């Protein structure tokens, strides 16, 4: 059994907890001194310098982990061992020979109590086939050596970190020893490092460092600090530095929990050119591996401030899902392109209320023919049906009216893909205004023979004249569809279906929600959804997603990818553990609502704790929390 259990995963970052008590340990900081207070540290290395021969022993270096008094007695282990000094005395990481590594691995495997042993991995041996031998064991903790020498090589750094995270199961703690400035922490946690130490705090003599959260100053020249350690006659720089490290990690732990780590990373990334470049490599080259480990069912703000935001995993995932899973309602024949609004969901903004009014007046009874697409960056295109989900309801961007060429390109690409989904005779009304929008529409017109009618090219979309133009244009366009039968439109049903498709796969919406679907409850309450008098699902206002009743799970169990295959006929308790999870679909994201099956039988719905890929890699610990079990008739 492994010592650690990831209870939350966000990309490569995660919260590691002790397996039995679930006390959170990572992202954490180790100290080198047993006499430092435990708060703010996850543990300490017992590395005092011996002063007597009596203290000399061949017992291993110990890493003691800190737990609360209450948990202390219940934990699986409270310490780890550095039993072997792997390459002692031998070459530096870069010149360790493969035979030395092989003999280290062999020695390591012969140690007793492997879950408690610290394995030392030089990054140069990441691709060694011997690593898999270690991963087959319950080894729970890896000390990573040589990573800082890649801090100037963005390509190698991103491929190394990515390889590491996709190779190791998520329940192995990764410790990066040595002096690391706190401004690097958020990026390193984001790329999968769980533990650091406070060695940089010690550099406080005349050549040392004064740390702040985002910078590092020479000790003889630094800004005044007003922390309790700095005020007074003899400032305690060591403890000041410790405090900065502890607070930096605390902020990271907080944003990890809140789901805003990526925003923090984008803020901090600019302290290092290499890290900024590495993040771009991550986003462009290793996007899919990263995305699959990123939760998409969240309710945290998505602040898209930098250029990096365009390629955020949650945003890219959104675009991919819309591309693959969005299908317009069958009756749609007229697409209206609208600008976004600062207020979310868009419908609640003043501008969209005006648009809605104009559209309602223009379409008189033919509303079922209309389909609204909101053009925005960095999400590109938001169909009206999906305006209430994460991330569309939660993103925010600084609006300047300027579109970068990349934004234009990405948006046009997705818009084209979506427009392809409509029938050939579909007409398009463009009710946006500004150069960026014009560029996008121009690409659409050039690439495909879409006829786009603009209603807001002379003045702002909310101006009276534009709104009148919009109304008239809709009227005009609808005349050509006169022959079509009038059909009733139900925006809420469309929203439910689109959400279900987004969440569980294309086509699921129609299976779950037939025409006779009834909704009880009013926004902002959660809405309960009934079919033939039976509760089938709940639409959660917090994140805009669906929570399924077992009956719905049974309906879609053969259609969706969100499936965990369980190893027994009955689930006892409320947790799915790794050994019980025979196979998880590798498309599952952490936080996804999943269906637990035993052969063809649906047992329960559950919430995934880690990605499906990682569930399959884990050998112990929790992988999902059961939500609702299927009642068994006696």
């Amino acid at each position: 059994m492994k010592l650690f259990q990831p209870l939350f995963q966000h990309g490569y970052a995660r919260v590691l907890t002790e397996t039995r008590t679930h006390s959170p340990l990572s992202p954490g900081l180790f100290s080198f001194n047993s006499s430092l207070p435990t708060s703010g540290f996850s543990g300490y290395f017992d590395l005092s310098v011996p002063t007597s021969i009596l203290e000399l022993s061949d017992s291993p270096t110990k890493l003691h982990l800190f737990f609360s008094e209450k948990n202390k007695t219940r934990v699986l282990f409270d310490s780890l061992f550095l039993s072997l000094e792997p390459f002692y005395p031998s070459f530096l990481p870069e010149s360790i020979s493969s035979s030395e590594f092989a003999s280290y691995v062999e020695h390591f495997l012969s140690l007793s109590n492997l879950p408690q042993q610290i394995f030392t991995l030089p990054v140069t041996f990441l691709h060694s086939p011997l690593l898999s031998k270690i991963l087959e064991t319950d080894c729970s903790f890896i000390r990573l050596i040589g990573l800082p020498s890649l801090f100037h090589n963005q390509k190698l750094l991103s491929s190394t970190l990515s390889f590491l995270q996709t190779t190791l199961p998520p329940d192995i703690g990764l410790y990066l020893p040595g002096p690391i400035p706190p401004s690097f922490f958020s990026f390193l946690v984001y790329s999968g490092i769980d533990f650091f130490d406070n060695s940089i705090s010690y550099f406080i003599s005349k050549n040392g460092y004064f740390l702040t959260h985002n910078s590092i100053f020479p000790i003889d020249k630094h800004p005044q600090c007003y922390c309790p350690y700095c005020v007074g006659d003899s400032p305690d720089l060591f403890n000041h530095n410790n405090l900065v490290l502890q607070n930096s990690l605390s902020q990271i732990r907080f944003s990890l929990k809140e789901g805003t780590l990526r925003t923090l990373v984008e803020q901090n990334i600019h302290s290092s050119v290499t890290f900024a470049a590495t993040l771009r490599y991550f986003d462009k080259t290793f996007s899919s591996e990263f995305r699959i480990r990123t939760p998409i069912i969240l309710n945290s703000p998505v602040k898209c401030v930098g250029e990096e935001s365009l390629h955020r995993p949650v945003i890219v995932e959104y675009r991919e899902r819309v591309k693959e899973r969005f299908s317009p309602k069958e009756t749609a024949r007229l697409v209206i392109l609208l600008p976004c609004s600062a207020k979310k969901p868009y419908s609640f903004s003043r501008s969209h209320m005006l648009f809605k009014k104009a559209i309602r007046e223009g379409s008189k009874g033919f509303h079922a023919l209309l389909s609204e697409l909101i053009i925005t960056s960095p999400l590109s295109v938001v169909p009206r049906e999906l305006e209430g989900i994460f991330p569309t309801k939660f993103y925010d961007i600084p609006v300047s009216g300027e579109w970068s060429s990349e934004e234009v390109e990405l948006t046009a690409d997705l818009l084209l893909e979506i427009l392809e989904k409509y029938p050939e005779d579909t007409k398009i009304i463009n009710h946006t205004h500004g150069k960026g929008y014009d560029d996008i529409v121009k690409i659409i017109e050039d690439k495909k023979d879409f006829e786009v009618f603009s209603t807001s090219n002379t003045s702002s979309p909310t101006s009276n004249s534009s709104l009148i133009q919009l109304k008239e244009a809709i009227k005009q366009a609808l005349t050509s569809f006169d022959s079509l039968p009038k059909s009733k439109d139900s925006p809420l049903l469309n929203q439910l279906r689109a959400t279900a498709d987004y969440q569980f796969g294309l086509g699921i919406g129609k299976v779950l929600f037939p025409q006779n679907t009834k909704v009880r409850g009013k926004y902002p309450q959660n809405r309960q959804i009934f079919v033939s008098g039976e509760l089938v699902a709940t639409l959660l206002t917090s994140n805009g997603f669906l929570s399924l009743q077992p009956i719905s799970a049974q309906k879609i169990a053969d259609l969706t990818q969100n499936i965990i295959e369980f190893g027994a006929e009955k689930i006892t308790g409320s947790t799915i553990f790794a050994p019980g999870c025979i196979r998880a679909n590798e498309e599952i994201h952490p936080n996804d609502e999943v269906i637990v099956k035993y052969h063809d039988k649906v047992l329960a719905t559950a919430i995934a704790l880690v990605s499906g890929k990682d569930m399959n890699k884990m050998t112990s610990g929790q992988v999902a929390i059961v939500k609702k079990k299927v009642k068994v008739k006696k």
Partner: protein
Amino acid sequence: MKINPSFSEMIYSIRQKNLPERSYSKKVIYWVEDTRLRNEKGKAIVFILPTKGCSWASSKSGGCSICGYIYDNPIEPDYDAITDSLKTILQEKIEIDLAYSIKLFTSGSFLDKKELPLEIQKAILEEISNYQNVKEVVLESRPEYVTDQVLENIAGSIDITKVEIAIGLESANNMILKNSINKGFFWEDFKKAALRVFEAGGKVKAYLLFKPPFVSEYDSIIDVFKSVEKLAEIGVDTVSINSISIHRGTLLAQLFEKNQYRTPWIWSLVHLCKSIKQNFPKLRVICDIVSGGNDRGAHNCGSCDKPLLEKISHFSLSQDIEILSNLDECSCKKEWEGYLCAEKLTLNEVEKNLSSIKR
């Protein structure tokens, strides 16, 4: 136990590159300094005899990873000049009312017949034996040259109880001898030589190297500790802890230049002297620090280096442990504590990490 061939090859190639450029003098270099005799303070006259140098360093095995003394030795030695100038210097420098130790260093092995023929060894020692106030004669040698024949030759020239054979053991850990130093001999060879010296009536001094390459400072402290324990066990009564300094043209110098090695902290040496003396009160503990206070030798932050170095040399002379107690605390002592741990945990990558932070 055998040497590590690939390691030795690496060192040999560095040697090949640097040997042709050596600059040397054929003059006998000497100086007079204060020293610790077994039971009292005294003066030492230290001679550097320009022999052809260390047989190990000039062999195909490349010699030790840390030692560049060979670059100072002449290719062809002039033995007559050596004995003559030694004679003159002794006459000039020895004062009647002081106790002396004569230290004969060749940057190689005094006892190696090929480096100093037996008759030259004899001539030198006989010359020294003329001076009654010379209490100790220190001869440096690798253990393989400590043979019965050579010891008999010594015993025939001088009172052998005055003779101390100084052997650069560096570490009693064979893995360190093999993989960090390429010493070419092992603990067992040393032990055999030491026992042979004891049997002949002489004394043995062991040099221990503080912080060989690839060994973290923390581990080296422990290694010195363990080595001292082993030495005391077999009856060695003098240990000289030699803090490393960077010699040009060595493997160590290459590591140093690539930021992969930091020369030792003076705090470590203070700690070692103090705790070894506490644990082995009868042992004579000498700590010799070459280029102390510089980047290429043992150093701290720069502010506290000088006073600490002085304290250590006072301690070496007086063997008084009190000198090393109650030292002024410098902010870098904290840094030293952290450095020890960080260096151990990163497999000696701290210097590199730090240089990447500073960018």
